[in-house]
């Protein structure tokens, strides 16, 4: 190579060499600073970066950036969100009658003859949904019953083959949270909710975003990238993104499916607290959750709405309600008094402290048992419903349908 060529080549190679050196240097510094290297031990990356230049450095950079977006970053010194005092280990009684707003009867979400036929019997058929204003409406049904399809049509993500949908709220006051929320993994929790704010409520201040994150128990994680979130945290974040615009109608698809018992209790309490302020439609296959918070329930089965109405009425309609009373006083007088009631089907002492009572309806039992106990001056320790839950009602309802379908015409 001639001397002049070398003289030209050196300055020509300089930028390339500087670029490569900067790349290798950056990678080595990054390797030293990070606690763990991607896919390989840290020592194995050093020869790769140095020898296979520049491709080793490029591969390291791409892999480490991808990993940074998906690995949970611990937040030192920050406590986990406080667990609630009780977990929903057993279904609570059906909620009390809805507040005034829910009882007013104004229907906020209404569908008429809604049909989406996927073929082969799958889809939704002639759904006439009526969701009163301010209520928490639980949509239950087995897998493939059409819950997600119905919610997708309500949100406008899917189209119906026929039928109409009417939602009594403007577009930006309807919020949705899917069963598996998805976000850009390189955004922080704050940025996700703030992006939702930009679209649905651009005038809100940054504090509103933090308050919403606080509401769902993610305020301590506000600056963490969501790629490292667990599924439960992602579900909470989805709820926060849905709540930021203070929606009038909130559509939640399986909002507790990925949460642990404590997380479920928190979210269910949150949903229950919305009653009267906004209308919530939420689907779930966890019937205890629906019973815990929903004052109205719709039962979907094979794409058809089998039942729609008050949760308590469903339980009342399909069950022989039973209770076990535990007393701190003699039980014989109470058993006699219970047997004398016209609504009592059966009353018997299980032992010296416990009585089993079968009533003709839930309402009669709920009203009558306290009256009898008061009249007998009995000292009550506990009164537990037996099998008076939505799951039993759901099974009874679907069993009835199967019997009807199987009976000869």
């Amino acid at each position, binding site marked *: 190579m001639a001397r002049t060529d070398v003289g*030209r080549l050196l300055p020509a190679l300089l930028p390339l060499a500087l670029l490569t050196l900067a790349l290798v240097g950056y990678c080595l510094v990054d390797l030293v600073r990070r606690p763990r290297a991607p896919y390989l031990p840290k020592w194995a990356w050093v020869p790769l970066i140095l020898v296979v230049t*520049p491709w080793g450095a490029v591969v390291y950079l791409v892999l480490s950036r991808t990993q940074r977006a998906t690995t949970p970053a611990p937040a030192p010194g920050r406590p986990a969100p406080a667990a609630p005092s009780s977990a929903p280990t057993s279904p609570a009684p059906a909620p009390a009658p809805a507040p005034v707003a829910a009882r007013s009867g104004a229907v906020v979400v209404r569908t008429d003859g809604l049909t989406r036929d996927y073929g082969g019997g799958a889809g939704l058929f002639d759904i006439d949904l009526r969701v009163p204003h301010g209520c928490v409406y639980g949509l239950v049904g087995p897998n493939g019953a059409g819950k997600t399809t119905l919610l997708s049509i309500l949100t406008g993500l899917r189209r119906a083959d026929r039928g109409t949908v009417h939602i009594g709220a403007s577009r930006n006051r309807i919020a949705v949270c899917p069963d598996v929320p*998805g976000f850009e993994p390189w*955004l922080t929790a704050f940025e996700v909710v703030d*992006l939702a704010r*930009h679209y649905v409520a651009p005038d809100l201040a*940054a504090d509103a975003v933090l308050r919403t994150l606080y509401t769902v128990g993610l305020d301590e994680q506000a600056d963490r990238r969501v790629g490292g979130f667990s599924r439960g945290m992602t579900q909470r974040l989805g709820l926060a993104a849905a709540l930021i615009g203070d929606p009038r109608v909130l559509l939640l698809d399986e909002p507790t499916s990925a949460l642990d018992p404590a997380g479920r209790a928190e979210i269910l309490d949150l949903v229950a607290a919305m009653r009267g302020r906004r209308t919530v439609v939420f689907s779930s296959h966890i019937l205890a959750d629906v019973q815990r918070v929903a004052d109205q329930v719709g039962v979907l089965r094979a794409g058809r709405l089998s039942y729609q109405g008050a949760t308590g009425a469903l339980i009342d309609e399909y069950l022989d309600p039973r209770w076990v009373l535990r007393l701190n006083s003699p039980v014989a007088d109470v058993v006699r008094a219970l047997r004398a009631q016209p609504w009592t089907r059966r009353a018997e002492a299980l032992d010296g402290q416990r009585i089993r009572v079968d009533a003709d309806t839930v309402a009669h039992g709920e009203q009558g048992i306290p009256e009898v106990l008061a009249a007998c001056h009995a000292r009550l320790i506990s009164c537990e419903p037996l099998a008076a839950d939505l799951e039993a009602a759901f099974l009874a309802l679907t069993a009835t349908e199967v019997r009807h379908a199987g009976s000869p015409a």
Partner: protein
Amino acid sequence: MPAAPRERMNPWRLEWLRMTRSPRGFVLALVYLFFGFTAPLLARYLTQLAKLGSSGVQIVAPPPKAVDGIVNFVSQSSQTGLLVLVVVVAGGLSYDARRGLATFYRTWAPGPFALIWPRFVAGTAVAAVAYLAGTAAAWLETRLVLGPLPAGRMLVGAGYELVFLAFAVAVVAATATVGRSTLATIGTAVVVLLVVLPLAGAVHVVVRWLPTNLVRSPAGLLTGATVTGYLPAVAVSLAATAGLLVLATVRARNREPAS
């Protein structure tokens, strides 16, 4: 609650973060820079390198000219750069591929154009920055090892190439409304940009109208082609870009996200 001030989010900041917090923008710039720095060197020393690799074979080649540096850069970077660009922008434009993500974007945004437009602009901007950085590197290297180049024609050629890159991003935007996954979007866009359009270029009558004609314009303008000779391709590219964005918007509005 943490009191540190945070930058407020909007669709443009979202795209900025997409390019800076993931390796997308970096990789694209790296590809063009790599070819920008190496292609002129290769043009200058190709004969010597060939001699090193052959034993006893005499290689006779004309001495390299300054224009060969840019010709080499264009030929080496055009396909690889385009491929990486498709992959980079497809990730953002195929937001419908993930139902969880699509549910939020579709219910937040006032319409599909509000989602497509920032992604298109950001993709085009990143492509432009990466391409211009690569071209600047190629120009610098060429000047150092081969000699000076006409700056005016270089700039016009780069401008034409940018029009093609915008068209390529619009193709990805449209194909994202056809495929159900990011991979399908990439595959369809690659077939259109690297197979269908180059094959159509074999038809002599239409070649000067095809957007792909602009890919070689930076080299062509240095080797005798006229500036006006590429104007039909520029016009078609701009019209097609607008048409593809309209098509993407209409298709995104009419289709349902992946289940």
